[in-house]
């Protein structure tokens, strides 16, 4: 007996029944998939992908490591807690990084980004960026004084360019120069090994002028930073010239012998001179803290915390704003949902119990707001609610309030609640109506015939059955209001704005997209959590939209 129970059911030809069933249903599944495919692709491309990308920005932070790669590596060994600034090598690394970034004009972006974390960094980057190309000038002058050949672009090309590039560049130069761009500069292997820093900085120089300025390395004098790099290479490796041959070897030997006598340039002093913040450990701490490619900084910021060298800390009392705004958004949304329910329930009840013709007419009135521009409706509330507006005028006229005591009903929370309730009311009424429509009048009749008064029949029999509609309407109104933006913006003033207004501000004005994304993610998470809580308490199965 037990054997047959455990036996796998099979079709007549011995295939497992489940597999056969799956095969039989596959066609239907594919058909269903094909039917939803256009919408699915559309939604994925235009909705899900941008949102995921946007949310990703809340943790993305590769701007520091991309703009200052050398500095970030140098800072790895620096103890942020030490209280002293990092060593000269770090300043040198920053010199090169900033030089390249300044030429590509990326240093201001980085400054803006780091300024979210510590005020003042933006100006340090901007000021330094203007002067950084002069930092290595001391070396340039000394090299040129040693041998004028160092001033000639050809010397550098001869020293550093790969023979292949020289050939193809010559071919290009002989032909129609406007037809194609100059071939990208390539360093030769000898130089890469013997003069690593020089090759790297020169390579960056060559690429930058080729791309940014459409100039040729054969015609441009290198940056001062290249001389600085050469000085360091030769100091570190005096025998570098041995790798080369001919004129280059002679030139380098001469330079290698001379560098020991050069007056070193104090790069650090130049940085501090450009902006005194560079002499403080805090700016370096900030750079080091935000060096990783991913950061929790935006999220911490969105809950009024910050990442410091001592770990996560709450911001000072007077700088906190987002938690308060989240709280206000939730409270106001709840108030709006409740007032929607209080106003909507009787209307839905009436609609559900009127004869069809009358209820259709009234339903059109309920839906009318849907067909009116949101902006028009909100502006209408401005006209009605303002202190010189229709309602105040009327109240003064009938003498309820004095002219001096006009009510403030707009540009505050009252305005937001009134206007939003009006806008979201249909979203409450429609689910309520559709649920009430399905409640047979026989239930109330039965309750009355069993001896219940009108109120008892309503409260104990009708109301519990309308709860799914209340649930659906409340969830709908609450979720819509929690993310609402335009109405609070227009009628909320400062005390009636929502978190979404702050998000919009960061998207369009402060351009701090990372923080905007973090706030958005927080909002999304809050809604999800509330949804789960709701599911626990009421049960999502109980939500009916019709």
């Amino acid at each position: 007996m037990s054997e047959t129970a455990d036996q796998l059911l099979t079709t007549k030809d011995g295939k497992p029944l489940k597999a056969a069933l799956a095969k039989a249903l596959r066609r239907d599944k594919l058909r269903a998939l094909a039917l939803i495919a256009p919408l699915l692709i559309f939604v994925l491309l235009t909705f899900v992908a941008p949102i995921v990308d946007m949310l990703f920005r809340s943790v993305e932070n590769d701007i520091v490591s991309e703009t200052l790669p050398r500095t970030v590596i140098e800072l790895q060994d620096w103890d942020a807690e030490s209280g002293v600034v990092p060593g000269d090598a770090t300043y040198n690394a920053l010199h090169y990084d900033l030089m390249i970034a300044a030429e590509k004009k990326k240093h201001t972006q980085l400054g803006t980004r780091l300024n979210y974390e510590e005020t003042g960094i933006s100006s340090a980057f901007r000021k330094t960026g203007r002067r950084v190309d002069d930092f290595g000038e001391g070396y340039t002058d000394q090299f040129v004084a040693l041998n004028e050949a160092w001033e000639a672009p050809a010397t550098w090309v001869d020293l550093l360019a790969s023979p292949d590039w020289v050939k193809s560049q010559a071919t290009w130069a002989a032909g129609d120069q406007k037809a194609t761009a100059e071939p990208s500069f390539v360093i030769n292997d000898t130089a890469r090994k013997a003069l690593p820093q020089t090759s790297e900085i020169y390579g960056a120089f060559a690429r930058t002028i080729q791309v940014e300025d459409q100039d040729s390395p054969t015609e441009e004098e290198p940056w001062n930073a290249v001389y600085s790099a050469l000085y360091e290479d030769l100091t570190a490796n005096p025998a570098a010239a041995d790798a080369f041959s001919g004129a280059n070897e002679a030139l380098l030997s001469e330079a290698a012998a001379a560098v020991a006598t050069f007056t070193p340039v104090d790069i650090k002093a130049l940085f501090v001179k450009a902006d005194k913040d560079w002499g403080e450990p805090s700016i370096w701490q900030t750079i080091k803290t935000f060096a990783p490619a991913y950061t929790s900084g935006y999220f911490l910021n969105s809950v009024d915390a910050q990442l410091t060298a001592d770990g996560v800390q709450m911001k000072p009392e007077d700088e906190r704003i987002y938690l308060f705004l989240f709280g206000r958004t939730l409270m106001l949304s709840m108030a709006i949902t409740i007032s929607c329910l209080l106003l909507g329930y009787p209307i839905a009840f009436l609609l559900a119990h009127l004869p069809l013709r009358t209820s259709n007419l009234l339903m059109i009135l309920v839906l009318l707001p849907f067909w009116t521009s949101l902006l028009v409706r909100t502006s209408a509330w401005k006209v009605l609610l303002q202190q010189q507006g229709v309602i105040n005028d009327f109240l003064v006229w009938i003498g309820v309030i004095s002219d001096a005591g006009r009510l403030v009903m707009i540009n505050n929370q009252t305005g937001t609640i009134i206007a939003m309730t009006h806008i979201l009311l249909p979203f409450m009424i429609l689910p309520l109506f559709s649920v009430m429509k399905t409640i047979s009048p026989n239930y109330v009749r039965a309750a009355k015939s069993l001896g219940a008064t009108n109120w008892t029949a309503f409260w104990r029999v009708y109301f519990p059955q309308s709860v799914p509609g209340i649930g659906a309407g409340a969830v709908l109104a609450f979720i819509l209001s929690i993310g609402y933006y335009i109405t609070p913006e227009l009628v909320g003033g400062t005390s009636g704005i929502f978190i979404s207004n702050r998000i919009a501000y960061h998207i369009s004005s402060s351009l701090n997209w990372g923080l905007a994304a973090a706030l958005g993610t927080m909002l999304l998470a809050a809604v999800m959590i509330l949804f789960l809580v709701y599911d626990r308490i009421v049960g999502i199965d109980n939500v009916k939209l019709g």
Partner: protein
Amino acid sequence: MSIIIAFGKFGVSMADSLGAAVRYDGVQKSYDGETLVVKNLNLDIPPGEFLTMLGPSGSGKTTCLMMLAGFEPATHGEIYLNDRPINNVPPHKRGIGMVFQNYALFPHMTVAENLAFPLQVRKIGKSEQQEKVQRALEMVELGSFGNRRPAQLSGGQQQRVAVARALVFEPDLILMDEPLGALDKQLREQMQYEIKHIHENLGVTVVYVTHDQTEALTMSDRVAVFNDGVIQQLSTPDSLYEDPQNSFVAQFIGENNKLNGKVIDVSGSECLVELQDGTKLKADKVNVTNIGDQTTISLRPERVEFDPATDMDNLVKGKIEELIYLGDHIRVRMNVAGNDEFVVKVRNRGEKRSLKNGDIVPIGWARNDCKALDAVV
């Protein structure tokens, strides 16, 4: 057996409660002010009676019930409950138990809570509530189902809960609005007997609305046949079938052969009718008065005999058009006097009968089996 015992217990506690008397006095009802849905209804229901309002949809029977329950106001006239006018008494104060179409069990309450509801609103003590609920559940054989939700019960069980709920607060009048309409045939028949037995055991007055004539005939003490807002006939089930007062009742209750003709002679309680093809038939004079009146003769199919004795009141010939075998009887459709819808039911006694399509055979029936009623066009 268990049913009877349970009834017994319930019955003891209700020994003092006799059914209520209901009286409709000249009641009229209109919804739109243009047409009358109920036209001048006068109806007396004595205590303890099982009265069924039977009729096609739109005949006004449900409206009459709703007026009695208090959900529809009467446009004119008065309804009395135990000689007390109740037009201005709201439904919850009438103390009438009601079983609804589709039961109207509260879906968000358990069975026990459903049953306790009428007791709660009457502010009856908790322990007494429990006791009564349990007794009512046992009466309908659902003693262990108290904690279930209505949706977890089968149709028949829901039906019983609905009946128990209407009875639990011991009303002396129960209204039932097509309560068995949603059940399948077998269950419906079983429930008919159960409701009938409950009625017999409790002695309450029951007003029952249905469009199913079998239900009406099975259960009722008296049946009021409604049509067009008027009671066409109010009588016991047997006389409704045997002695229909007009063509509507004859057609609505049971199967019926119609033969149209004209009265050519009247003597006492009988009359002679000439059919269109000249055939003359003797019939009971029910709904015709004068010679020359158009009339429709009503004749039950099972009263027609094949190969009749030569002294039968009515003897005609018919041509067999169709034979349908139905087990306990054979249905023979014939062409008689130009009417090819003439049906005869022949009891299946097991003997070989040599009926064939196309045969022309003699048939006959007694005078008092055919009634001369008002003419149907």
